[in-house]
Each structure stands twice: as structure tokens, then as C-alpha cells.
């Protein structure tokens, strides 16, 4: 069957603004949409919400800490509970532990995100400028790279590419540090064009000569790793190729004149100017944003109506990210019913989204060991579902964002789908326990915040509205009521059995049998709801 095209434009969305629209916007721009946030923004306007998401200054998270002393290893340099980013010593015992600390910490940043686009964009850029921690193999560089992604997440894309190019982790990952005039290495010069800027689309016609020329421009950068906490990229004039670099017709046959000594570093800026003069850069990034925020397929209509004008905005604003996101996320196209619920949740969206939507309480700073371990549990879960933050499959990022024809369908396989349901079941049943701390959905607490939990119809409607991005068939809701909440009792007349049980829970919280009954029903209901395929969409 042909899927109807969604032809609405980038014009400002002026339609209804209520919980369904807020939910759509928040599920796409945050990790999960919490009820309190939906309620808050539904009482404001689209404009206000977008301004808030884009322009709220979110404090920089405190750096990752040593939570990792154990029976086999105690970090002599870094006190337990103190950050290890100041460490001067790196060895086989602390490297892996710090990497796990970093992954847990990053996952914690997502869990504790404020209602801004920043953390989602950090993940977007991580997928775009993909690096693998197991290759970089240096927790300090990895952390600094992540700080860079966060710093530029909603900033200027061109400046970001500049910073990434000379970032230590990237120099290591794509061999920029081995790129010298005597032995030019094409790795970064190629990916800079193919994956980071002009892309491989039909509008991109850079040549192998351009790859070589770019590599030569980039010779001389290396990692200054004399002292660990200060590790960073530097320009080493002695390694730089000072000859002229000729680019192809795609780049208007431009020549970057070779510069001598320290001046050689400026060739990088000329190279970026040359690349960013190509309108394809803006298109390429806009397509990626579209796939991340709207829908995996960029069809002809979307290319013309969305990508082209969006890319224009991008160029007009000298590659500032915010105006592009603002335009896309305020558009009729974004809010088109045809686009709602059309993205399959990534593992991180699923796992972090669940924790945030159910307001799961994680251990606090005072229990930082348990806190980090719980964060790491969720990170591991996402990793088992094939999204291991920090270690994407390769430099192209996750196939869900580029691989035709499956795109985000590639998150769903015979391996990962049962794991998704096992995870949602687990978070309802037992969660994860770390010594005295436990992370777990509290179904009663969650239900209490709803407007009419005693009415089984409203309860199910409201839960469905919060958990799903798409409408559920009426029969399915009917089944949830009679099959789960009322256990085979049917018809309007029987609704009061649930109402009575719920009211009794509020009035007589000491009635253990009733509490248990209500809790079990809610658990069954939530488990069932999250096991439906609809729960995988956002």
C-alpha cells in the first residue's frame, strides 16, 4: 500500500495547541514527555514553548566522578566521589572504569535534562560526528569531546566543525594526529566531506582529489598529550604540508594557497569556507535533522517544501542551528497529523523516556555509587537494544539514521523487540536494585497524578494519551478495561468495581489486600500497554 505523502509546508503552525501537540513536540525534542511538562506547556503557546526549548540556558552538568573503587581497585589519585577529569594518571585499571563512569554520567545528563533541546541535540551530534570510545581509548579525551558537543549543540554549525576538526578525540579516532606532510592520511579529510558536511547525496560531487587536497590542508594537527587533564589538539607547523591545494570543479576549482609556519593553521578556515560555500552542506544537515525529528523518509515533496527552504534559513543565518530548529519545529509540517507517531523510538528514547515519563526516582548525589550504577543499568539496557552511547557501530553513526530502506525500523529486530518488552516489564515488576536503592515504576503514584483514576474509561484514555503517540483502537481500550481492570466484568454497570477499589485505596491506604489488588491491576495494565507495538512509536 502506498503511504500518502505529507505535503504540508514549513509555514508556521497555527492550529490547535493542546496536550496532543505538546506531547508530540516534547516526545521528539526531549527524552519522553512528562505529564507535568505537557500540562505546563499546553497552558502556554507554541511560540513560548519553542522559545523555552531553544533558548533556556541549561546549566553545564558537573563532570563525571570516581564511583568505581571496588575490591580490585582503588584510584589512588582521585578520591571516591571526586571528578576524575583532573586526573594525571591513566592506566589499565582506571581507564575502563572511567569510561563506564562517563557513560553512566552521560545517561544521567539525559535523565536529568531540563525542558530544553540541548541533550537531544548532544545525541544528534554524537550520531553525526560519531566517535567510538573503544577506539579513542582515553576517558579524558572522550569527556572533552562530549563537552564540545554540548557546548555547540545549539550553536553555530560551522564553528562546531572547526572545533571538532581539532578536537583530540576526533584527531585520534580519524587519524588526524597521524596526518603529516610526509605521510598524509585521508581519513578525516574524507569523512569531513562525506559524513560531516556535504554528504553523499546527489548534490554532492566532491572527488577523490578533493579528499586528498583536504587531507593535505589538515596536515599538522596532532594531540598534545604531555599532560593528561589538559590533553587537546594543537597545530604543529613542522608537520604541515605547505604546498598549494587544488580543489575540483565541485568547489569551483579553488586553490588553497600553501601557508608557511604557524600560518598553516589558517588553511583549515579556508577549507571550511570553501566547503560551506556549497549549498549542499545546509541541505545535508537539514535532511539529517528532518530524519531525527520528523520522519525517516525525505521524499520529493519534503525535499522541495521542507529541506530546500530550511537549508536556505540555515545559510542565511550563517549556519546557526537555532533558527533552523525553530522553523522546523514550529511548522505545519512538523505538526501534521501525518507525521505524528511516525518515528520508532530509539533505545535511548525508549529507556530514558520511560524513566522520565514515569518520574522514576534515581538515587541522589549522596548515594553516588548507587546513582551511577543505576544510570549505568539504563545505559546498558539501551546498549543491549543496540544503542550504546559513546560507541556507535562506526563513524557513520547508527544505521537507523541513514541506512535505506529500513532507517529507524532497524531498531526493531527479533533480538531487540523482545528485549524492549522485557525492559518495560522489568521496570514495572522489579526494576533494578543497587544495594538499598531501587529504580522502579510506582504505578499507584503515577496514576494518582491523573485527573480521574477512579473512572476506568478515563484512566485508560488518559494513560493511552500519555504513553502513545497514536490513537489506540477502541476495542483495545475496551479490552484493557474489561480484561485487565475489571477482570472479565463487563459493561458500564461494572465500572464501579474499579472505582470502589481505587477510592478505597485513597481512603484506606492500610488495607493491604486492596492496595495489592489495585497495584497489581495497574501493573498489568501498564505492562500490557507498554507491550503493544504502539508504545514503540513516538
Amino acid at each position, binding site marked *: *500500500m502506498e*503511504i*500518502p505523502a*505529507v505535503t504540508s509546508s514549513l509555514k508556521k503552525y497555527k492550529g490547535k495547541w493542546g496536550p496532543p501537540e505538546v506531547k508530540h513536540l516534547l516526545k521528539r525534542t526531549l527524552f519522553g514527555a512528562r505529564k507535568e511538562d505537557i500540562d505546563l506547556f499546553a497552558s502556554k503557546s507554541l511560540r513560548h514553548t519553542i522559545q523555552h526549548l531553544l533558548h533556556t540556558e541549561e546549566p553545564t552538568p558537573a563532570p563525571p566522578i570516581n564511583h568505581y573503587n571496588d575490591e580490585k581497585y582503588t584510584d589512588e589519585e582521585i578520591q571516591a566521589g571526586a571528578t576524575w577529569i583532573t586526573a594525571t594518571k591513566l592506566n589499565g585499571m582506571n581507564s575502563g572504569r572511567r569510561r563506564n563512569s562517563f557513560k553512566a554520567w552521560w545517561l544521567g545528563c539525559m535523565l536529568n535534562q531540563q525542558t530544553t533541546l540541548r541533550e537531544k541535540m548532544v545525541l544528534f551530534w554524537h550520531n553525526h560526528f560519531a566517535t567510538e570510545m573503544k577506539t579513542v581509548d582515553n576517558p579524558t579525551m572522550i569527556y572533552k569531546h562530549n563537552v564540545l558537543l554540548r557546548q555547540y549543540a545549539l550553536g553555530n554549525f560551522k564553528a562546531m566543525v572547526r572545533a571538532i576538526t581539532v578536537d583530540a578525540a576526533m584527531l585520534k579516532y580519524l587519524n588526524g594526529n597521524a596526518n603529516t606532510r610526509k605521510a598524509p592520511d585521508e581519513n578525516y579529510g574524507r569523512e569531513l566531506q562525506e559524513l560531516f558536511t556535504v554528504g553523499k547525496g546527489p548534490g554532492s560531487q566532491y572527488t577523490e582529489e578533493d579528499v586528498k587536497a583536504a587531507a593535505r590542508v589538515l596536515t599538522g594537527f596532532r594531540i598534545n598529550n604531555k599532560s593528561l587533564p589538559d590533553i587537546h589538539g594543537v597545530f604543529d607547523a613542522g608537520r604541515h604540508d605547505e604546498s598549494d591545494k587544488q580543489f575540483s570543479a565541485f568547489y569551483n576549482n579553488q586553490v588553497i594557497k600553501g601557508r608557511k609556519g604557524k600560518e598553516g593553521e589558517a588553511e583549515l578556515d579556508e577549507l571550511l569556507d570553501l566547503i560551506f560555500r556549497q549549498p549542499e552542506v545546509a541541505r545535508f544537515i537539514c535532511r539529517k535533522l528532518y530524519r531525527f525529528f520528523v*520522519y525517516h523518509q525525505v521524499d520529493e515533496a519534503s525535499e522541495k517544501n521542507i529541506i530546500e527552504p530550511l537549508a536556505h534559513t540555515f545559510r542565511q543565518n550563517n549556519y546557526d542551528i537555532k533558527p533552523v530548529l525553530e522553523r522546523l519545529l514550529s511548522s505545519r509540517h512538523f505538526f501534521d497529523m*501525518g*507525521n*505524528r*507517531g*511516525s*518515528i*520508532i523510538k530509539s533505545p535511548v528514547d525508549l529507556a530514558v523516556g520511560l524513566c522520565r515519563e514515569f518520574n522514576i526516582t534515581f538515587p541522589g548525589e549522596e548515594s553516588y555509587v548507587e546513582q551511577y550504577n543505576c544510570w549505568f543499568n539504563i545505559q546498558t539496557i539501551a546498549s543491549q537494544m543496540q544503542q550504546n552511547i559513546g560507541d556507535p557501530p562506526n563513524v557513520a553513526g547508527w544505521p537507523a539514521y541513514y541506512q535505506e530502506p529500513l532507517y*529507524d*525500523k532497524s531498531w*526493531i*529486530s*527479533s*533480538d531487540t*523487540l*523482545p528485549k524492549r518488552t522485557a525492559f518495560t516489564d522489568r521496570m514495572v515488576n522489579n526494576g533494578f536494585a543497587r544495594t538499598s536503592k531501587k529504580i522502579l515504576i510506582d504505578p499507584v503514584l503515577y496514576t494518582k497524578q491523573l485527573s480521574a483514576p477512579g473512572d476506568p474509561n478515563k484512566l485508560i484514555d488518559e494513560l493511552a494519551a500519555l504513553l502513545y*503517540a*497514536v490513537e489506540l483502537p477502541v476495542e483495545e481500550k475496551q*479490552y484493557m478495561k*474489561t*480484561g*485487565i481492570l*475489571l*477482570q*472479565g*466484568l*463487563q*459493561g458500564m*454497570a*461494572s465500572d464501579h*468495581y474499579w472505582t470502589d*477499589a481505587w477510592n478505597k485505596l485513597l481512603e484506606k491506604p492500610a488495607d*493491604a*489486600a486492596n492496595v*495489592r*489488588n489495585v497495584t497489581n*491491576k495497574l501493573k*498489568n495494565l501498564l*505492562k*500490557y500497554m507498554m507491550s503493544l*507495538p*504502539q508504545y*514503540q*512509536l513516538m
Partner: protein
Amino acid sequence: MKRRQFLRNTISGVVLPTFLQGISLKALAGTPGLHARHAVLNDDRVLVLIQLAGGNDGINTVIPFDQYSAYTAARPNIYLPAEKVLRLNGFDATAFNPAMVNMQHLFNEGRLGVVQAVSYPKPNFSHFRATDIWMSGSDSDKVVSSGWAGRFLQDIYPQFPDNFPNEVMPDPLAIQVGAVVSTALQGPLFTMGMAISNPAGFYKLVEGKVNVNANSRWGEQLDYIELMSQKTDQYATVIKNAAQKVTAQSPVWPAAGKNPLADQLKIVSRLIAGGLKTKVYMVSTGSFDTHAKQTETDTTTGTHAKLLQRVSEAIGAFMADLQFLQTEQRVMGMTFSEFGRRIKSNASGGTDHGAAAPVFYFGHAIKPGIVGANPVIPEKVNVNDNVPMQFDFRSLYTSVLQNWFNMPAQDVQQILMGDFAPVPII
């Protein structure tokens, strides 16, 4: 667990006879009991449980015909006319509701029986709590989270779910038709059953179809997830294969969608005949909570009659299909409802939550007849009068586990958390 280990060891030759309260190992080894676990694994017997959710009105289902005047006095607005009730061969004192034609036939042919007044001490009148008690097999004042059938299956397959399915047991241990596996099939740690979402879902699975939502972007994504979900269910293939082995079923089944219970039992019959080794099937039908207007002015019609007609028709068709598919020797079934209803009918032409109620059991290998006596209907009935218990429901489970599944008595006691005398139904 330790006890099991001990039994295993004794079987493999470690002789420690005094551990079993002085009974010598030789004597034990001679009984079928000691090898029962093995026997249960290999026999092909199946139990089908039919839940009548809501609390079935036992007195208008199995009528105490010997007390007809007291019965009509207690239920002036809903009593069934004497000339319409269905009489039972050899049991003049008792009659069936006129809607239960198929079940009357089965009874008269000796393939269906009734246990009167089944309940448990200190009955609970909440649907939810009472259902949990029936499902878990617990005492009224104890909360047990596992189900009796789940514990039974856990006893036979203690390693489940690790390394399941496997060669010895490639099939689901229990199948529930319905989206959520019921408490009865909950093991101590894991649910021992799998759910087949609903009859429509089952046929889609067999035919490899998914709901077609593909006329939208989200719908197309959803279809993909549904398809993947079907493909990845570890038991989907065995269920599909079993179903496909059965190409024809009895013509007596009502048309799809007409009788929801029949639709469920039709699937069960097909899977049994298709060779699944699944031990327990559970189906459910609801709406027995008849507080008001349970009959029309003609009391042989109305809500309750319709419900009973469905149950009767479904069981009748199921039994016919077992014969058609030649699986009748392997199967026994049993109904249960969380409670019965009050002896006296209420002013709204209905009945309120009560205590004991009859249980039906059926199959080709059962001992037919009526176990127990008709409930006594007081001449002057009070609004709170209840049918007192004659049999603890766990006595019926004891019979099923001991005589149908050949479980050793000690295991049965452990599973049911007490010693309940069996009733002569098998």
C-alpha cells in the same frame, strides 16, 4: 527445592529411606508417584480451564429441583418454570437451566459432571480478591502471588524459562487465550503461560498477517513492528505449525464471532489436535455479574440464559470437536467462577454476590454424575442467605493433579499448600 533434589537423588540410587517418614524407598518406588514427574512429562493429558468471570448464579444454573417451592419462593422474579428446566438422567432432584441443552446432553451421555457448592472457608465477596483466591489456590486470608497451575507447571519444569523451548518441551507450558496471562498460570518467579491475544490475532498469526495500518506513516511503522513481533515470539512458529496440521474441524462450531467462548475453545481444540504438548489451557468469558435483570419476563430468556447458552454451546462443540479430531481421551475441562450468588434474588430481578456455586467438569475419561447434594433452600429465605460450601475448590484441583496428571500426593500438597481430600470426578 531441596526436597526435589532429594527425590532426584533417591531415584538415581542414593538410598536414604528414613527421610520419607519411615516409608521404605522400595515401596515408594513401586508406586507411580515417584516417577510421576517423568510420567507427567511424557503423558499427553491436557487440562482446559474455563473461567466464568463475574460470579455465576449457581442456583439458576443447576436448579435444586427437589425444593422447587422453596426455590420459587426465594426467587419469585427469576425462577425457571418447572416444565422448562432440563432434567438429568438418574438425577431427578436436580435440573439444568433451559439454556444448557448441550451440557444436558453431555451429562446424560456421561461425559459431564457437576460438583455442588464449591467454595472455600471464609468466602470473599470482592470479584478481584475472590478471583485471586481461585487463581492462586490460597486460603481466604492469605495472599499468594503465584497461581496453582503455575506452581504445578513449575514443579514439572523447574528450570523454566531458562533454555526453553527445548527438545523435551518445545511448546508453551500453558496457553491462555487473552492478552494477559492470568494469575492461575503465574509460577513462583515467572509466568508459565503464554497468551494468544485473541481469536482474531490467532488467525492472523496462523496466516502470517498483520493489521494493515499502512495508509499512514505511523501505520506503516506499526505494521512493521507487529510483523516483527509475530516473527520473534519464540513460540509463534510451533503454534503456527500445530494449527496448520489441523485442516478441518467439526462442523458443529458456531460461526466466528457469534460465541466468544466457542471461538476460544475452537483454537484450543485445534492446538491440542495439532500436537502441542502444552498441559494447561485457559479461556475466559465474562459478564456473569448479574446484579439486575438477569432474565426477561420469560425467565428462560435474558442475560443469564444467553451466557449459559454460550457456555453450553461452546463446551458441546468443543467435546464434539475433540471426538472429530480424535483427541477426546487426552482432554478434560473444568469451569470456575470466583463465587456464586445469593440464594434470594433481589428486587431488580438479579442476584448479588454470594458464596459457593457448582463447578462443571467434562471429558471422556471423567467420572460422570453429580458430586454432593443440592444446596438447601430455606423456606423463609433471608437476603443474606448463602449457599454453604460442600467442597473446597482445592479438593477439585487435588483430584485433577493427582488423578488426571498423576502427580504424587506430596507434590500436590505442596502445590496446593495444604492437604485437600480429592473428590471422585476422575
